[in-house]
């Protein structure tokens, strides 16, 4: 073997690692640009909403638009609050969102766990059926549900809307939780099983605590979806006393297609706050959960 032999190898290594560094920095830049664009796309409308909510009536809809409100005022907020029974509507929205989240999780959790872990006849077709629900558009589900709920006297009740949401979101929730349970190491449950721990205790004390990120992710999704939902709420809630915020925001639509944008955006801003709080509270688990999903 000649003394020169190792040199080409070294060179090879050097060029590969240089290429590698180049590739990874290029990748990082691309990722950064994409994230930047997406962030702007999300933040600009939010900013526009808040900015408009602080403008007096006569400064809304100017062209060219003024991005920073010249004379910020809280008047739109005060005026908007007089336009509807916001207290009741906030209360309804909170009850329905929390109720739907709890109800859907309570049904989806055991279902997803059983489908992910237990062997029983028909498990696979059943899971496919849950996935099938995901593909039904809300508009198609709406009519039969409405007819059924009329017969059950569930129209114009909070419980009715919660049940309708739970029906619609069940497939999605089972699908999401199923993938979290499938990702949990089976050995932990087996270790408890050979330790003599009952199946229920395994579910409650081992599986649920470990599935917390998955639970939080699904829960946050459910809460936010329900909070913002309009079509079902508009259909099922008929008396003003039952309205949720998303339905209530229609009060700013005048008779002649005129919309009081600054007041609408003021209430929209207020109604976004609970969603942001919920998200902030669960953000750590939510991010863990999303990252966990990505690993599959």
């Amino acid at each position, binding site marked *: 073997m000649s003394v020169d032999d190792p040199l080409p190898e070294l060179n090879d290594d050097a060029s590969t690692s240089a290429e590698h560094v180049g590739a990874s920095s290029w990748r990082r830049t691309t990722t950064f640009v994409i994230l930047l664009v997406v962030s702007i796309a999300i933040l600009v409308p939010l900013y526009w909403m808040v900015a408009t909510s602080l403008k007096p009536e006569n400064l809304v809809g100017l062209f060219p638009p003024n991005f920073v409100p010249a004379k910020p005022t809280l008047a739109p907020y005060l005026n908007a609050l007089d336009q509807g029974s916001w207290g009741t509507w906030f209360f309804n929205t909170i009850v329905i969102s929390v109720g739907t989240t709890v109800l859907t999780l309570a049904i989806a959790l055991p279902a997803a766990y059983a489908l992910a872990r237990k062997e029983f006849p028909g498990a696979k077709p059943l899971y496919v059926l849950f996935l099938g629900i995901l593909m039904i558009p809300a508009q198609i589900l709406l009519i039969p549900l409405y007819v059924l709920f009329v017969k059950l006297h569930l129209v114009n009740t909070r419980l009715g809307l919660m049940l309708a949401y739970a029906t619609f979101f069940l497939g999605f929730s089972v699908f999401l939780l199923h993938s979290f349970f499938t990702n949990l190491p089976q050995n932990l449950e087996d270790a408890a*099983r050979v330790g003599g721990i009952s199946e229920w205790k395994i579910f409650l004390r081992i599986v649920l605590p470990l599935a917390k990120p998955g639970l939080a992710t699904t829960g946050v999704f459910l809460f936010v979806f329900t909070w913002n939902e309009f079509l079902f709420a508009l259909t099922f809630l008929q008396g003003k006393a039952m309205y949720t915020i998303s339905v209530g925001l229609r009060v700013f639509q005048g008779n002649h297609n005129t919309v009081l944008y600054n007041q609408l955006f003021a209430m929209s801003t207020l109604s976004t706050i609970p969603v942001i709080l919920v998200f902030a509270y669960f953000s750590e688990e939510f991010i863990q959960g999303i990252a966990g999903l990505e690993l599959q």
Partner: protein
Amino acid sequence: MEITIDGLTKKFGDLVAVDDVSFTIEDGAFVTLVGPSGCGKTTTLRCIAGLERPTSGRILFDGEAVTEQPPQERDIAFVFQDYALYPHMTVRKNMAFALEDGGMSADRIEKTVEETAEMLGIADQLDKRPSSLSGGQQQRVALGRSIVRDPEVFLLDEPLANLDAKLRVRMRTELQELHQRLGTTTVYVTHDQEEALTMSDRIAILDDGQLQQISSPDEAYTHPVNEFVAGFIGSPAMNIVPCYHGGDGLSTGAFDLEYPGNVDETTTVRSLGVRPEDVGLTEPSGGQTTAEVRVFEHVGAFNVVYLQVDSHDEDLVAQVPRAQKLSPGRTVGVSIDPRDTHVFDEKGEAAFNPRLEGESPLEQ
């Protein structure tokens, strides 16, 4: 507790993981299931635990069928290769968790956990989470979690596989001591034949879902029932070369040997095996044939020599005493005593094993 495995078969779809395996593990014994990956050893262990449901066959504990019982009712402990510690609980909680439902008072649980932790040298780790422990410490927690329950059977699935070499050897000894102290029936799964040989009362060697041999480690080494066991047990592995009837005995091409033991021209032969320690190296003029040293390895207690037999392109491995040093390229004489050989018939079953008293290498 005596464990009987009777005609155990486990299929996963079309794959037969365990194929009609039967054997008995005596009360208090330390039995190792050993074999290459995919041989069915872990599946057998999981069937004993009740974590897999056999496709057919029975499992009996002290003569009583437990095949249909869930793992919860079997009074066993299982240590997993990855330890399977509950990441959201402290070490103390990990060890106490299974005791909570057993009707034991909180004080006694606390005492049992602390005594066990003391015995395993993890008493100062009790309030930590598993993720902050080293591999060896996690291993001890996994053992501790099993020991506190005082089970009838210990099932260990490659518990040392994730440890570094030095720690593995130490834990091997600790596990043996533990078994001697507790006297609990233990079934140990490993792919490492050295672990199997050193730790167990008996070893069950599996290949392709089938039980090849169950015997004492010594017997598996000196008296392998077939070519697979001969090649699998022992490190460096036995030299196994094709052979045929030739001259006045058996021939491998490079070596012409007298018929050993009761082997004669009526025996159908396929191959001949010789342990590296039974390959004799001499000066070139003194051997049955000559060979070139290709690689020389210092293992420590002995040296391993990889040889190429000059005349026949046959590779041989020899084991020589530590003091004997041979440089690559050197020519040596090689001789094999037919009484030290293992002869395998056309099916690969042992037709002859050197089992004469005083001559088996482990008894010297």
